[in-house]
């Protein structure tokens, strides 16, 4: 299998702007080493300002590295960008590209021309993509008459019209409604899966579920550093450790310390709801810790158990554990995952 993207000790700093550090230099990426084989969807997951967009800009030849190297399809981003540009494309969420006076189809045609695609081929591809994205009825509408979401769909299509070998998607579902976001995700997944020639997608997102569902591999990035790289499944497994249970009991005085002391319990937390006269308890177990001992102890304390729920570890838990905080940001209400 060939390598689509490879970086070695890739770093990028900015002078001025952002948060200035002592020397007036701000380190947006430090020593990033990634290797992305062809044919996969590779996710970059990280909080605001983590450096995701900076990395994508370097890989898409829009920004030079300060040090280290990056190769796209074997070509150096530094000086072989003329070899890279024909085989890549990029779509960013919230983009406002194109010309308001041209129609959707005309704008897409125009961008295809910048890749030297003959008009006939371009128009056929545009037609197909508009159909898939449910935008056919807007083909002849001027884009200054479109809603933000429709514009984002058009922008999204723009990325696929040129049939790139490697596609960068920077928060592509930003501003799309639940259905459109789902269609978009499915489209990207099918595009990679059904490709005759291997296609590679590098995706950044603020939506955990999107990363979990779409990506074959994920790099978790924070403050310009890669903290972990693995499949979503492995990340969840690795970070999980022992099991974790939510147990609800009827209200009664109890001794928290004695619960914490139960063998096999790694940590214990609780909250009392006066209104419902219940106590919610969270037990995190060490690997191999057993639920039976807890139930035994609760019964012997005279607490009546109302509900036991095993908590599944999510990608978000893995993320919190690695980064130390929740993945913030993202458009509230724009997506189904929150």
């Amino acid at each position, binding site marked *: 299998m060939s390598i689509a993207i490879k970086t070695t000790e890739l770093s990028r700093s900015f002078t001025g702007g952002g948060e200035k550090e002592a020397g007036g230099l701000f380190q947006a990426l430090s020593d990033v080493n990634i290797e992305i084989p062809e044919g996969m969807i590779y996710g970059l997951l990280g909080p605001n300002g983590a450096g995701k967009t900076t990395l994508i800009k370097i890989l898409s030849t*829009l920004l030079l590295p300060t040090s280290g190297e990056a190769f796209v399809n074997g070509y150096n981003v530094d000086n072989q960008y003329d070899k890279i540009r024909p085989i890549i494309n990029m779509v960013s969420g919230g983009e406002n590209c194109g*010309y308001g006076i041209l129609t959707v189809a005309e704008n897409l045609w125009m961008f295809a021309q910048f890749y030297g695609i003959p008009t006939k081929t371009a128009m056929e591809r545009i037609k197909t993509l508009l159909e898939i994205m449910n935008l056919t009825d807007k083909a002849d509408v001027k884009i200054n008459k479109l809603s933000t979401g429709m514009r984002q769909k058009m922008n999204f299509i723009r990325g696929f019209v040129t049939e790139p070998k490697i596609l960068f998607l920077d928060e592509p579902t930003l501003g799309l409604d639940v259905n459109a976001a789902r269609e978009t995700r499915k489209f990207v997944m099918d595009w990679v899966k059904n490709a005759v020639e291997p296609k590679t997608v590098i995706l950044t997102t603020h939506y955990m579920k999107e990363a979990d569902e779409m990506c074959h591999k994920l790099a978790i990035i924070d403050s310009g550093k890669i903290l972990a790289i693995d499949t979503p499944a492995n990340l969840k497994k690795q970070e999980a450790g022992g099991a974790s249970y939510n147990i609800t009991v009827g209200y009664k005085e109890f001794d928290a310390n004695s619960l914490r002391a139960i063998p096999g319990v790694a940590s214990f937390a609780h909250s009392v709801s006066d209104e419902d006269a219940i106590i919610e308890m969270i037990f995190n177990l060490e690997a191999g810790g057993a639920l039976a001992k807890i139930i035994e102890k609760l019964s012997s304390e005279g607490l009546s158990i109302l509900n036991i729920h095993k908590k599944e570890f999510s990608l978000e838990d893995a993320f919190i554990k690695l980064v130390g905080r929740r993945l913030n940001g993202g458009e509230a209400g724009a997506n189904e995952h929150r």
Partner: protein
Amino acid sequence: MSTDELIKNLRGIWARAYVRIIGVNREPSWLIFELFFPLLPICAFAFVYKSMNAPSDYLGFVILGGAMTAIWMNVLWGMAAQFFWERESGNLTLYMLCPMPTMAVLIGMAIGSGFSTFFRVIITFMIGKFIFGITLHIASYWWLFVTFMLTIAAVFSLGMMMASFFLLYGRDAWNILTVFMEPVFFLSGFYFPVKTLGYPLGAIASLIPITLGLDAMRQLAFKLGPATAFLPVGVEITILIILTIIYLIGAKYLLNKLEYLGRREGRLTLRWQ
């Protein structure tokens, strides 16, 4: 450049020009903006000249000058300030991203504008000529056409250079538009022969190719034209050609610089995020 590459570049040029040629004429507002606006000052000046009993050719000068203002307006709005708008919309980023040389995009922009402007100048002039009953005395249709085309080429080459220049060194678009609008209308002799400025000032004004183009066209189209000539037509045409070449080279140089600095600084070409 191979034939294949050439064809690809031509596709890019045509696509960008298309926006201007087809797209802009879709919006009827340009009629008001680019036909009516130049006509207003034309009429004002024409009436002043008329009340002074100036020779009718002077009215003709004003009308031609006024019609040519459309070119300058176009260059300022559509070329010099263009990269500011393109950066805001994110188009500039996409132009850098695509395999097409950005120069092709810039040329497309200029050709599209130049083409639209060409007709507007002629229409505005014809309307003015009709209103004020101007008689032309055309020395050579061929040379008049050549001069007109060369003027457009030179001015838009200057515009191509300004596009990168202002994104590199300008503060914002409005700044540029205000600084360059009025003084140029005065200096380039839109409303009077540039000769009246005297040679030193006229020479400076000649850096704006419209000045020379207009002077040459007045010489070629009006009976009194040669009498008010700044320089002989042949010299003016030669200078126009030289200016076009210099501005094109300058445009390419500044665009390369813009692209390089954009990649290095991550700021000029990309939206601040």
